[in-house]
């Protein structure tokens, strides 16, 4: 076993997990408080990436672009809440799903109109574009370390938000219950819009952080949203802690599966068969994990308290 | 006189609230046993534990000599316990007759028959219609349940409980929200059921309870503070103090 490679892949897995957490935490936040299922969350992730890409070229600096793109993405989220989502809260989950499905078409096509069909690759500043050698042979791109630091920072921020603020008190109460929230003397409409915008910003941030590695592209939202769903299902819908743990587990399993499954399979089958089977199985691994966990715990690892 | 339902040491806690606090009840076959108690005493929670909708934290529920404490709701129904709901719980999109027919079908079986039209199975329809006649809803049989008035919903709830042919009925405030006249009809109807069915009745309407019950248990803050014949309950100092009286 090549431990250096294993180390590098574990770092990659953690980084993927933290990106997943950024997307999933927004989803679970919106669901926990608003009782709203947002399929278009992935499209907001995409919009964040595109806005940041454009700004990087305009401002000439990736980090500056992220700082400006964050509130802009929040604004997009706010607009979506104001004009579409708000009208859907009263309806059932089926309507949420269908309405936000329509929203995906609108957002993705708008991105197509504005930014064109090609993806945009985002250049990094020189000091971020390099690599760091952690120990002999273990070379990690500097930017991935930044992603990990950012992800951990946001996770820490959320812990603070959930445990030590008024907003967090509502989250912990699982306050999809309007009467309870208004009994606490809070303007519900503003609170909901705020939560939605916050969730959007986190998804957008994930999109911004991934764009220098892959690129900003139209299809990116549709891919991440399902994985984010798997994360919050496994973690328990509405649970922030669950989302974090599940995101890391799934990030690791997905990355390590893709990296090592073929050599693992070669131990028990022919090289040819392993080469065919490994990609297929590793592509399904997170879903198999989800199935196993749900078969044992239908409400996920950390089911929210009685709602 | 044999015991049909034996509840021992039942406990259920929600957060910090003891909704059911060491409850012991014995229901004798054929009796109408009423449970009374002030709002928030935990009456509905108790019924929900007996019907299987809520799992108790500890204690045991024995029905016909079988321990059903951890059985799911549908197996209890098969064994012969049915309930009505305090907040009307019907299948609103279906017709009144369909609602009752489903209850008849539940003990008739054959529910995995996939192709034969259910509405053409005469004995299901006839039995359902007969039950509707008993509660006086036969004229509304073909209307959707959603079209009925509140009072009629209460009657339909009872019809469904009846149609399931359960030996024991748990009735959760069948009189809730009824006008005086409707209440009288309901009381008279429940009287006709006495002796045929074993009934555990939760009710707020004191006149109804004292007119109907063979025995009464008083539930206050999750505890049974007294059980006895209506006269004994009326005379019980604790009950007068805690609940009945001195308003």
């Amino acid at each position: 076993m090549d431990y250096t490679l294993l180390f590098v892949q574990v770092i990659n897995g953690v980084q993927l997990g933290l990106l997943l957490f950024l997307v999933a935490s927004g989803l679970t936040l919106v669901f926990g408080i608003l009782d709203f299922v947002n399929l278009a969350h992935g499209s907001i992730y995409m919009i964040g990436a595109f806005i940041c890409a454009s700004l990087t070229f305009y401002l000439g600096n990736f980090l500056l672009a992220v700082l400006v793109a964050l509130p802009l993405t929040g604004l997009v989220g706010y607009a979506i809440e104001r004009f579409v989502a708000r009208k859907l809260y009263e309806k059932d989950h089926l309507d949420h799903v269908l309405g936000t499905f329509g929203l995906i078409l609108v957002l993705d096509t708008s991105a197509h109109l504005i930014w064109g069909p090609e993806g945009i690759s985002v250049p990094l500043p020189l000091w971020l574009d390099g690599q760091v050698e952690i120990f002999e042979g273990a070379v990690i791109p500097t930017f991935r370390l930044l992603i990990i630091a950012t992800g951990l920072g946001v996770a820490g921020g959320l812990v603070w938000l959930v445990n030590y603020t008024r907003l967090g008190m509502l989250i912990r109460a699982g306050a999809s219950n309007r009467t309870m929230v208004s009994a606490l003397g809070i303007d519900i409409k503003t609170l909901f819009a705020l939560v939605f915008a916050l969730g959007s910003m986190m998804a957008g941030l994930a999109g911004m952080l991934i764009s220098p590695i892959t690129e900003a592209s139209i299809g990116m939202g549709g891919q991440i949203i399902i994985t984010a769903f798997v994360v919050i299902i496994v973690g328990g819908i509405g649970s922030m802690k669950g989302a974090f743990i599940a995101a890391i587990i799934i990030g690791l399993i997905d990355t390590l599966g893709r990296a090592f499954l073929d050599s693992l399979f070669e131990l028990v089958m022919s090289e040819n068969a392993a080469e065919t089977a490994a990609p297929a199985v590793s592509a399904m691994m997170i879903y198999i994990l989800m199935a196993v966990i749900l078969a044992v715990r239908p409400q996920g690892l950390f089911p929210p308290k009685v709602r | 006189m044999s015991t049909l339902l034996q509840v021992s040491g039942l406990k259920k806690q929600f957060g910090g609230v003891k909704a059911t606090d060491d409850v012991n009840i014995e229901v004798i076959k054929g009796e109408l046993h009423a449970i009374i108690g002030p709002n928030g005493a935990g009456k509905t929670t108790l019924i929900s534990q007996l019907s299987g909708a809520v799992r108790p934290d500890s204690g045991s529920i024995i029905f016909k000599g079988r321990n059903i404490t951890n059985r799911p709701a549908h197996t209890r129904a098969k064994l012969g316990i049915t309930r009505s709901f305090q907040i009307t719980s019907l299948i609103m999109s279906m017709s009144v007759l369909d609602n009752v027919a489903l209850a008849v079908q539940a003990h008739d079986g054959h529910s995995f028959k996939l192709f034969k039209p259910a509405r053409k199975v005469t004995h299901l329809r006839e039995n359902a219609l007969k039950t509707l006649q008993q509660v006086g809803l036969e004229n509304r049989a073909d209307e959707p349940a959603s079209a009925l008035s509140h009072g009629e919903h209460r009657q339909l709830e009872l019809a469904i409980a009846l149609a399931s042919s359960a030996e024991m009925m748990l009735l959760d405030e069948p009189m809730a929200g009824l006008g005086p006249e409707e209440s009288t009809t309901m009381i008279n109807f429940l009287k006709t059921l006495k002796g045929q069915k074993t009934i555990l009745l939760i009710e707020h309407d004191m006149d109804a309870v004292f007119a109907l019950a063979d025995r009464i248990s008083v539930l206050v803050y999750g505890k049974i503070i007294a059980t006895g014949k209506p006269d004994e309950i009326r005379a019980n100092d604790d009950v007068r103090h805690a609940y009945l009286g001195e308003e």
Partner: protein
Amino acid sequence: MNIIGKITIAGMLILAIVPPVLLLSGQAFYMDLATRLVILGIGAVSLNLILGFGGMVSFGHAAFIGLGAYAVGIPAYHATYGEFEMVASYNGLFHIALAVGFSALFALFTGAISLRTKGVYFIMITMAFGQMAYYFFLSLDVYGGDDGLTIDVRSELPLINLDSPMQLYGLSYVSLLIAMLLVNRIVNSRFGMVLQGTKGNAERMATLGYNTYYYQLLAYVISGAMCGYAGFLLGNFTTFISPDMMHWTRSGELMFMVILGGASTALGPILGSSLFILLEEILSSFTIYWHLPFGLLLILVVLFIRGGLMGLFKSKSGELK
């Protein structure tokens, strides 16, 4: 007969007559459109059984269509290029058996897990399982992976030649009729009553003594098998299959067809798939950005139209209060 019944019969008559007439008068394009519509209609009818009548919001139904299509493509591929003799075959009946069998098995496995959950969990899990099937075929390089798989020879059936557009349409149309009748029989049977009752009030059904899980699971398996059969037809129609057929957005489209037309009605899914495919054709002929008005339209439908098109007819005829 009530207005809904009349509309249903009229709609099915139009589908029986118009496309063949158009084909005979040289308009092959419309025949293509109608064939696609009818095949997806079968998928929508099967989804309606669980979504409309059973209240199970399954967001992974396109997976069954894909499974059905690969049940044609993989045996045909091996019959042409060798290897894996066990399944190599052009026999259509064998393809159907594979399509229906594997779809039913997949439904049994995913349904058994998904149905332990409720509400949003169920929506997301069915979606995730659908994506699992998608990624599975995406990473199977043997069968083209991302690039898809071309079917060189269509399924061979007794008496019917699927290479003839007219006969393929005929088979699809008759299949649709049978699917509609089947669903209609099922939802009105004792089983169907339990299924609809569970949609209306699951707690009540449990209190009556029904173990609702098994009823829902059986309906889910029937629906999946039926949809797998639609996939068999679709594979033979397009002669090209790719994982894209199973993508979650395809499942979303299928759901929209059901809701757009009117869930838990016989004709609703057909109306919905017709409207969906026609809109798609018309809008996409104007602009490559047709998804934008299309998406807006979908949002408006969700916000303002209760019960879909059939709902509109019902309220016009005064059947709905």
